[in-house]
């Protein structure tokens, strides 16, 4: 920006002091402006929590009990917190599957389908390898397979968006239903493990092919890979020309076209990255939790991931803390169900309520002068 012509600078820039003092006030200014993006989502969560408390009171349950069970079931002890971290791993990855397309201007909600198909593909690939290849070779192959299949699945929605103008929100959700149907088709048919009569599943991977825990914890490696991907994708979005081009496309599609950016490739690439993240979540669900592919893969992580990404304002670095919060709520779901006699959909109601209030809070941006730079305050 240093070589930009002086005329391009706004009036407020010219009135700012120069030198180290400027750097300091610039930092304070950015803090002030950016704190709006923290304060408003927090306010939204607070309002949603208050509404949910009223809801619980209306049906004769205690909100205090609810909070204490969330704390006990999700965060209170080392055991429950590790369980929470474990549950947050797929949420981090499926939230990335929403966040990356969101930065290029797409509302992609096909994470659940990519998770299911990715996990299924990993399990299918593993079956002929059991006992043939060592786990250190087989597991990366399975993870790669899950990412390729997941990436392809969401990539299709991105490609259709660019090439045919098909609404990506609807098509990605349709692809989710199709993906779940494909898995059920095989799991209840050709690839069913006949020795397991209780639940249609693929053959088990066996202990050797299970992903282990992070040393010193009870948390599987999916969590670490989720954090790593958040950092890598943040750098990709914010520090590379690819990320810059993607954000330009998301900000103004026509300007990106006029600049000659490869819009189609960018859209498909972002969609594929998104699907690969969700596919990886499926791999970890199969290879670290379930041990086989079955209908339990469609547990709704892909849908909670949408909420996580929106709460994090599609910023990969903010996704992990938000995912941990919701991982805790999901982890405490069973305890709430048993101790308070509430249906299993309680968590879903809470999530839906937070989501609705959060999106409603979008209207508050720019309304509070406390977040505006001093020079802008007098303007209407």
């Amino acid at each position, binding site marked *: 920006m240093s070589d930009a012509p002086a005329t391009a600078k706004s009036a407020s820039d010219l009135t700012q002091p120069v030198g180290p003092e400027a750097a300091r006030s610039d930092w304070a200014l950015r803090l002030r402006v950016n704190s709006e993006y923290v304060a408003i989502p927090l306010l939204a969560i607070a309002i949603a929590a208050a509404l949910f408390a009223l809801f619980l009171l209306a049906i004769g349950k205690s909100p205090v009990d609810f909070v204490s069970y969330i704390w006990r079931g999700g965060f209170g002890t080392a055991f429950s917190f590790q369980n929470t971290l474990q549950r947050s791993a797929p949420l981090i990855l499926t939230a990335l599957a929403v966040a990356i397309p969101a930065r290029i201007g797409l509302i992609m909600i096909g994470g659940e389908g990519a998770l299911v198909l990715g996990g299924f593909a990993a399990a299918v690939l593993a079956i002929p390898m059991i006992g043939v290849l060592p786990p250190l070779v087989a597991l990366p192959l399975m993870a790669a397979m899950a990412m390729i299949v997941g990436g392809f699945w969401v990539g299709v929605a991105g490609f259709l968006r660019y090439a045919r*103008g098909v609404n990506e*929100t609807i*098509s990605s959700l349709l692809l989710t239903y*199709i993906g779940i*149907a*494909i898995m059920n*088709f095989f799991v209840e048919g050709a690839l069913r493990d006949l020795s397991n009569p209780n639940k249609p599943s693929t053959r088990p991977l066996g202990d050797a092919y299970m992903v282990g825990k992070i040393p010193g914890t009870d948390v599987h490696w999916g969590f670490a890979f989720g954090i790593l991907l958040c950092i890598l994708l943040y750098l990709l979005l914010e520090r590379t020309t690819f990320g810059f081009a993607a954000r330009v496309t998301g900000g103004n599609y026509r300007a990106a076209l006029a600049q000659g950016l490869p819009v189609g490739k960018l859209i498909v690439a972002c969609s594929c990255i998104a699907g690969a993240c969700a596919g990886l979540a499926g791999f970890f669900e199969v290879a670290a939790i379930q041990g086989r592919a079955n209908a339990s893969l469609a547990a709704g992580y892909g849908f909670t991931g949408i909420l996580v990404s929106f709460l994090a304002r599609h910023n990969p670095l903010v996704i992990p803390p938000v995912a941990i919060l919701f991982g805790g709520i999901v982890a405490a779901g069973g305890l709430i169900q048993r101790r308070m006699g509430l249906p299993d959909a309680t968590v879903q109601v809470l999530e*839906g309520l937070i*989501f609705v209030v959060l999106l409603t809070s*979008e209207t508050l941006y720019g309304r509070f002068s406390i977040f505006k730079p001093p020079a802008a305050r007098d303007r209407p």
Partner: protein
Amino acid sequence: MSDAILTVLIAMLGGAIRVSTPFMFVALGECLTEKSGRVNLGLEGTLVMGAMVAYAASYHTGSPWLGVLAAGVAGSALGAMHGSICGLPKVNDVAVGIAMMLFGVGLAFFFGKPYIQPTAPRLDSIPLGFWSDNVNLKSALQVNPLFFVGIVVALVLAWALRNTRWGLVVRTVGDSAPAARAMGISVNLVRLLTTTVGGFLAGVGGAFLSLSYPGSWNQGLSSGQGLMAVALVIFARWSPVRCVYAALLFGAAGAIGPSLQSIGVTQGYYFFNAAPYILTLIIMIATSSATHSARDMPGELSMAK
């Protein structure tokens, strides 16, 4: 062999009529909402909510038609919620739709848990196959009155949109909000009303699911019908009458699997279950275009911009 084909075709006819009804109601509701320039993706949640409320109301009152009414009221409430939130500046109607879908489904499962076991009185069908001796045809022509209600709603909606003052107001708001404002029309109020009425219709569609076909309440009742109906409106190019044709086509696609099962073909059950989704996707690919927006699309739709 030809007997088997005939059986499948008759079963598909009956299936098309049965399966198409919820599609039809949701599509008509969405059609009205989109005509005013707003998209409500949350109708999947409204559909499930309508199914649950209808079943519960029918169980408690003993009258399935009161159940249908209750489902419509619940759908209106969800529609009004979507409509009023999207009336605020800077709020994205597609994203709110996703949130309302999750919220509606969550609420329906939450309150619907006690109603999975008991049996509620269902809507009676009209035996239109009385003239035939063919058992299959008789059962295929057991048509629910809601099917005809849906067709009447489509005709009234088509007429009203074209010929009444209200229809003109809705179309103007949908095609150009500035023009509507210049005429002194409250854009947000019109959209709130169309979304509310759209929610009512989607709720009634849900009532059909739980009170007629499949005719029970459980958590797997709807998987994407509400969403497919939204896609169907694009295919029907925002015409209520074409929404009916499109719903029948989707109903037939949805009936392939059960029809084949009726003659003992059980292979590929899950594939045929997926047929409506695949058909929706193919139709969306065929009718969309990268370079220009769809024909007859209301100009204010966020999908059009």
